[in-house]
């Protein structure tokens, strides 16, 4: 088994049975997993923010940083790797609100906005979500086992479990 770390603002796509795609410690970020169970083409996106902030120009050419562009990029990369778009099974993970105990939270629920952005984008692309493991107030590590299309989530103090 070879773990590929999918960091913030990154995506990874694989068809190699020895690969495990991992996003460690997703907090408010959202992980989007897409798997074609026939070709075993599997992808994981680790998106940070819902979409680009209007009026602010960064030299940022990285679409995977944002949910909206990242989901589209992931679908394109999977199709390029041999996936059939209509067979893709989609799961979303993350979008927690890490600051719930403090007064900072009201201005800052990016987790919820990330979840909404994922739902809206996937709905627009007519791609149903099969599993959501989202919200709450804890970080999650998500693993995608390319060999058998399993997807697992782990939170602090608990064992890895399949979703």
């Amino acid at each position, binding site marked *: 088994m070879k773990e590929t770390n999918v*960091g*913030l*603002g990154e995506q990874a796509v694989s068809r190699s049975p020895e690969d495990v795609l991992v996003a*460690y*410690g*997703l*907090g*408010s*970020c959202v992980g989007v997993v897409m798997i074609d169970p026939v070709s075993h083409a599997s992808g994981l996106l680790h998106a*940070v*923010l819902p979409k*680009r*902030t209007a009026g*602010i120009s*960064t*030299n*940022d050419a990285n679409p995977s*940083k944002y949910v909206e562009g990242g989901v589209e990029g992931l679908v394109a990369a999977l199709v390029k790797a041999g996936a059939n778009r209509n067979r893709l099974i989609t799961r979303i993970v993350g979008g*927690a609100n*890490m*600051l719930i*105990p*403090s*007064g*900072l*939270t009201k201005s*800052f629920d*990016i987790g919820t906005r990330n979840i909404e952005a994922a739902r809206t984008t996937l709905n627009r692309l007519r791609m149903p979500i099969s599993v959501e493991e989202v919200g709450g107030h*804890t*970080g*999650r*590590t998500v693993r995608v086992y390319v060999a058998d299309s399993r997807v697992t989530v*782990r939170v*602090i103090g608990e064992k890895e479990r399949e979703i």
Partner: protein
Amino acid sequence: MQEQILFDQDFLEKLKTIAREGVNNAASGFSGMVGRTIRFNYPVARLVPVLSIPQIVGRPEDEAVGIYLRFMGDLAGQIMMIIPHQKALELVDLLMDVPLGTTQHLGQLERSALGELGNLCGSFFLNSMAGKVNADFRPSPPAVMVDMIGAILEIVVLTTGGISEEALLVQANFMDGSRSVDADFWVIPDLNSLQDLIKKNSVV
């Protein structure tokens, strides 16, 4: 169009000098609160890619405690203290003045004690900075998170990442030799407000 100020090496060195006094002051507050002398290493000030922030201390899946506050006023920004979970338990023992190994779990009371520690260190740092640059800063109440390092540090990324690709990170470390309290202390000023403050005051 706003004139850009370059955060070059010279600027970072000067900022480091100001931050050193702030960290020294925070360490004094820390020492007073736990009743022991807390040492600190000299802070570094550097520009880091925002998306790499969760990998700066430890592994992103390691369990840690994050104490987070923001500050507003003439300068806006964020303060984060990161403490490995086991060290946080030891720190609570010190704060509660109980034998080492007593605290096994971080409940409401223990989190509140850690929040107060973060509050105090943050306030001591900001008070020192405020005096130095003749400015006014107001800290928010602290938020205490017990979770994976990656999930905790994402807060800093989310706050900064929509605006800038790089963050200015002032990083120091508090140590207590015998009981090795190992706490990372970060200050991340908002770059736009830092530029405004520099222009107003010629502070550095």
